[in-house]
């Protein structure tokens, strides 16, 4: 991050180990693994799977960037149609036999995906380590609850207020703290998350530990139902009312979340390719250099915080409108950590990557319900294994990968790295 002295200097010459060419990458990695850590040998099958996956991803990307605009748009449309048909009965029977699939798709899956996209703006694009992201989710949730129950505002009005309020809170948190270096920022944001939760717990006006109940649903937009025709009847979605919101309607909330996700992705993508996105990349890679070149780094960091916060707040508003009641304990620190894990294991900086990451952290614990009390244990082990075998994430950002090869990966790598066999392999290529 802002590598004022140590990290960036140390980063130089300590070549990272990623390579654009996956097969060589795999071979070298395996070699290093066999020599250095015998454990890697035991887990070779997993290594093989992740590497193959990486290779397929590379190939796909090569193909993808050569496609003309219309064919990309076809794929986007197909993806959205796929998203609409996703809460189908057949998919449910495989994806979540033990709990309601459409509700899961709304939250945690959809919610985590959107939170991860929001946190990705802060962590993946601007390179700021935020360990208290749940605070903005909470602020959005409480905005919905307070304005919905005490002032009788409608969902759509509150959504706007929630966006503004959470963005403001991002500025309030960021203004005094964004001048701090990376890990100081981490602990301060962690503290902010706890401060928000505890303050909610201690404030009678918003219900204290009881939280707020009776939160209104969004007004139904239409009673229209999917017709009993292709493709809906094929996947058991006929008769579902996608635009009418009630306690039992799981699908409509999922579609609301899906629409929000699509909108946010378009927004985030445009940002990434704009001047703002390039400024963030500059801040992430070398803040001092960016500042020297005339990038107002503080302003852009603050913008990242505010935008990330607004997205988190939007998830909060949508979640609260479905949940009917929220309590401070819905917003624990571990949720911040989980979303951060989603971003990093998916591939920090790459939106499809963080979506996959968020999907996995939300879905795996639900899918392995049959492991009963062991599921968090297994989840923890999976997290470590994924990081050990694919530290750059499942679908890494290409730009990020290039940075990784330069050494710092934007976040700086761990100190005390030695030019060992990894660097040899790199040099030999």
């Amino acid at each position, binding site marked *: 991050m802002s590598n004022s002295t*140590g990290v960036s200097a*140390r980063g130089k*010459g*300590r*070549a*990272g*180990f990623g390579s654009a060419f996956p097969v060589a990458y795999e071979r070298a990695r395996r070699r*290093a693994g066999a020599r*250095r*850590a015998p*454990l890697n040998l035991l887990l070779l099958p997993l290594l093989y799977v992740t590497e193959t996956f990486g290779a397929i991803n590379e190939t796909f990307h090569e193909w993808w960037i050569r496609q003309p605009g219309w064919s990309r748009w076809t794929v986007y449309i197909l993806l959205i149609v796929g998203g609409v048909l996703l809460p189908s009965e057949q998919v449910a029977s495989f994806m979540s036999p033990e709990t309601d699939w459409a509700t899961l798709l709304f939250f945690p899956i959809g919610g985590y995906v959107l939170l991860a996209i929001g946190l990705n703006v802060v*962590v993946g694009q601007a390179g700021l*380590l935020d360990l208290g992201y749940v605070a903005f989710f909470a602020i959005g949730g409480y905005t919905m609850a307070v304005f919905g129950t005490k002032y009788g505002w409608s969902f759509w009005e509150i959504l706007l207020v929630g966006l503004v309020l959470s963005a403001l809170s991002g500025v309030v948190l960021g203004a005094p*703290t964004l*001048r*701090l*270096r990376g*890990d*100081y920022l*981490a*602990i*301060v944001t*962690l*503290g*902010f998350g*706890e*401060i928000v939760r*505890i*303050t909610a*717990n*201690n404030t009678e006006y918003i219900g204290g530990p009881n939280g707020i109940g009776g939160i209104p649903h969004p007004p139904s937009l239409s009673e229209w139902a999917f017709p009993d025709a292709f493709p809906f009847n094929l996947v058991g979605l006929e008769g579902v009312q996608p635009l009418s919101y009630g306690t039992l309607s799981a699908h409509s909330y999922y579609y609301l979340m899906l629409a929000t996700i699509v909108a946010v992705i378009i927004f985030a993508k445009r940002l990434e390719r704009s001047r703002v996105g390039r400024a963030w990349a500059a801040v992430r890679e070398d803040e001092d250099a960016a500042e020297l070149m005339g990038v107002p780094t503080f302003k852009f960091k603050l913008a990242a915080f505010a935008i990330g916060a607004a997205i988190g707040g939007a998830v909060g508003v949508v979640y609260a409108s479905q949940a009917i009641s929220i309590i401070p304990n819905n917003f624990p620190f571990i949720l911040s*950590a989980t979303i*951060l894990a989603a971003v*990093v*294991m998916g591939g920090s900086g790459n939106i499809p990557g963080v979506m996959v990451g968020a999907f996995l952290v939300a879905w795996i614990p639900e899918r392995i319900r049959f492991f009963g*009390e*062991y599921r*968090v*244990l297994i989840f*923890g082990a999976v*997290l*470590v294994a994924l*990081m*050990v075998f694919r*530290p*750059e994430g499942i679908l890494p950002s290409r730009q990020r990968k290039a940075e*990784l090869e330069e050494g*710092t*990966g934007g*976040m*700086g*790598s*761990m*100190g*005390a*790295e*030695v*030019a*060992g066999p*990894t660097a040899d392999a790199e040099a030999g290529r």
Partner: protein
Amino acid sequence: MKATHNVHNFLEQFWPSTVDGLALGSIYALIALGYTMVYGVLRLINFAHSEIFMIGTMAVIGALHALGVSSLYGGLGLVGFVIVLAFLAGLASGASAVVLELVAYRPLRKKGASRLAALISAIGASLFLQQLFARIVIPEAFDLPKEKGALPVQGHFVERDNVIEIGDLVISNDKLIIFVGAILMMVALDQFVNRTRLGRGIRATAQDPETAVLMGVNIDRIVTATFAIGGAMAGVAAALFMLRFEEAKFDVGFLLGIKAFTAAVLGGIGNLRGALAGGLVLGLVEMYGAALFGTQWQHVIAFSVLVLVLMFRPTGILGESLQQARA
């Protein structure tokens, strides 16, 4: 009206708050050492350090059960017994920290992965270790049904008495041992890092790893030593913690770990003396704050003080970096 009442409360509880704040702060400080050393050398927030502490408390409970301790210790006998427990816990925690580094961090380090990836690996390891104890180790070791593994396990061995009583200033034997023990460990570690060959290696690596390598320092050995020492300190902290609280739980390290990390940052992360200063200051701030504003605001006060301090001293009270620990 309310404010004067609060101030009255605060003054009334000043001495007890001071003693308890220092006792709690000593524990924070010892745990903070592990965070600060690992951070100094690797620039990594070792999130699983709180579980290394938890393993120390489990080692103490295990030792109490294995030794069949049924009597209560007091006086000098207690000091001796605590030294034995601290040694065992330090061993268990130090060894676990070394294994943790080998499994969860070293492969990442070898690949030049980002520190963010290591942080997530740390969070995963933390979840795994907590659940390992809650679901498997505790139920097996204490013959409890699985759902009871989430409960605290006890071992009583301390005969409490007050060694100092001057008016309101009452210090019990356990708190005195904790405070003195923490200071002694700090001094010993400070001397070790500044005087020994291995300590010099650690400082050199923290300062400039590349030059250290060129000068013939074996980085892997240094990292292992750093984890071993930091882990052992967490083990000692666990033994002192057990002296006061006598019970352990799979998630006992969670809050303490966050507070200890806060303490490390408050004092200046990477700085050994900063860890001590940060720990003691944080302990006192929490107790005074709770006396003034009510215990429900304790954590809020702790984090607010952190933000305030960082705004005026962006690298903590004593500034960062291990190599400047001599200051």
